[in-house]
């Protein structure tokens, strides 16, 4: 590798680390604020899976689109939703990215190419075909990425969406985050086919299993899939093997999996994997930047006004 390429790669790794750290520290901070009663509602957190969102979104343009799930905080930050506005949305404030109407499970902002997250399992898997169809009909070179968990693959919507994307050759990257458990249920209990990637093949869609703990590996696989879609090559499915470090939702005591298993996956923490490619000073600098961004976000959210109750009646119809 020549010096220019090495430098480029280093910059990429730094950017990925920054994104992964932003999501991790955001989620850790949010969890504490939730326990302290500052954030209402419920939470489905993303710690452990950050490499997937960061890796995929690093290959997308701002005018490319993503759909997300009930666990959308990481996708939102990776796609570029303003951190302060995302935090304010979790606080239920007027300045939130959805004006307080979306909340944790519907984070998103069309200005950066993210629909409000779709919190019905596999709900995004048919909607994304419409995004892809619009791009195809308009002959644009945009791409849509659909994030979903392995739990979504037993929904009819998963199969209808995959098949339609194949027959219409839509510019879609299907990103399965296989974190091994659908809420508490191990995937082996609900599918005799252990790899989701296999399911794509039967619809004529190329697929690939990716190390979902390594943002660089995810980025490389995604870059190829995005390029393929952008050039009219149709959809690809990436199965990112990953692990959710927290419970399914904030009240989950994780009795369905062993601490040993958790410790094994913790060794491959996406932050550790990336930090191994960087020097300590760089990591410290990136962490300091992230901390400052989050301090600002929390301050912004705390100091923002509640929505005017009258706005509860707005935005039902255009």
């Amino acid at each position: 590798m020549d010096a220019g390429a090495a430098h480029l790669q280093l910059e990429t790794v730094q950017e990925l680390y920054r994104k992964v750290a932003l999501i991790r520290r955001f989620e850790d901070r949010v969890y504490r604020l939730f326990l302290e009663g500052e954030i209402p509602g419920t939470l489905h957190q993303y710690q452990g899976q950050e490499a997937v969102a960061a890796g995929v979104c690093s290959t997308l343009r701002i005018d490319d689109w993503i759909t997300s799930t009930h666990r959308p905080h990481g996708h939102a930050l990776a796609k570029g939703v303003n951190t302060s506005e995302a935090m304010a949305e979790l606080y239920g404030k007027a300045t939130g990215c959805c004006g307080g109407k979306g909340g944790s499970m519907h984070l998103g902002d069309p200005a950066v190419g993210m629909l409000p997250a779709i919190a019905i399992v596999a709900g995004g898997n048919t909607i994304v075909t419409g995004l892809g169809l619009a791009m195809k009909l308009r002959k644009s070179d945009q791409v849509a990425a659909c994030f979903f968990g392995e739990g979504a693959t037993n929904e009819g919507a998963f199969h209808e969406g995959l098949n339609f994307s194949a027959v219409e050759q839509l510019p879609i990257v299907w990103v399965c985050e296989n974190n091994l458990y659908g809420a508490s249920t191990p995937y082996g209990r609900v599918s005799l086919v252990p790899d989701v990637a296999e399911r794509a093949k039967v619809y004529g869609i190329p697929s690939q299993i990716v190390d979902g703990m390594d943002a660089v590996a995810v980025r490389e696989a995604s870059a190829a899939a995005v390029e393929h879609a952008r050039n009219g090559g149709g959809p690809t499915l990436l199965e990112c093997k990953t692990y959710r470090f927290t419970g399914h939702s904030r009240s989950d005591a994780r009795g369905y999996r062993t601490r040993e298993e958790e410790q094994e996956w913790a060794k491959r923490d996406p932050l550790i994997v990336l930090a191994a490619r960087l020097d300590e000073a760089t990591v410290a600098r990136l962490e300091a930047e992230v901390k400052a961004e989050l301090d600002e976000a929390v301050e912004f959210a705390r100091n923002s006004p509640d929505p005017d109750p009258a706005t509860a009646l707005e935005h039902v119809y255009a």
Partner: protein
Amino acid sequence: MPEAAVATRRLTIAEALREGIAEEMRRDPEVFLIGEDIGVEGGFGGAFGVYLGLPEEFGHERIIDTPISEKVIAGAAAGAAMLGMKPIADMQYSDFLFECMDELVNQAAKMRYMSGGKVSVPMVMRAPVGMTLRGAQHGQCPESYFIHVPGLKVVAPSDAYHAKGILKAAVRDPNPVLIFEHKLLYGSKGREAAGGMDLTAEVPEEDYTFPIGQAVIKRAGSDVTVVATHVSLYRALAAAETLTADGIECEVIDPLTLQPFDTETIFGSVRRTGRLVIVHEDTLTGGWGAEVAACVADECLDYLEAPIKRIATLDVPAPAAPVLEQRILPQEQTIVETIRRLVG
């Protein structure tokens, strides 16, 4: 001053819808069609022939034949609409809408609200309703399920003029609009089945729309207000003719839009007549007639001279045998007798 002459022709609903769709596709390149069996060469032009001839003009790029995947039809339409396109989706039978309730109810209806007004979903979904001896899963009138969903608009046209006008308004509307059409009202074949009524109407040759949310008084009268859609509307009009012999004058109203409902036109009529009968082919319990009855009871109680009556399909799944189907459908004779009792 005399009205300027407007060139018109008599068209069936199917012809008027086809014309309306073609005009909107010519007007706006972002309008496209999506559904099952709508454009296949040598196919049907949709289950009821509404799309016949359109692929020849617009090609298959804008007329997208899908797999038998109702969730994809609704989801792809909603998703494309979220990016600003104007899909007209086709559901072969409205019974199949239950296959895509998530896409319609959780996604299309709520996306604008969840986004704080940043995303709109300007999609249209057409769906045929009505009992035609096809039994329990191809004859339902599910309009009422959808009026319950904030964020959706629901229309139910019954003649060619309004069908075309409201379809064109729906395509231009920035919200998801469901258009429910009755299978027996599409064309000449249905005319006989629906009792020999002439279902063609004068349709202007020039561009026009008919606003969503506006009811039409089809027949003026002073003794009783009758609100009805689809085939029930024609039965109500026939009943009104019969009742003139009794000296009873019915005011028959086609609401056209079920959500948002034109309550003002209904209230105004009830304040004049003092009586209200609602007729629909949906089953009775929880049908849209119940909502209309509740609104009128709220706003017009002092004007009512008799109880509000609902005449609807009996609360059973649709049977297949002709005599069984007729047993549960709202009949013209029932409307006549109900009104005689109310006014008498």
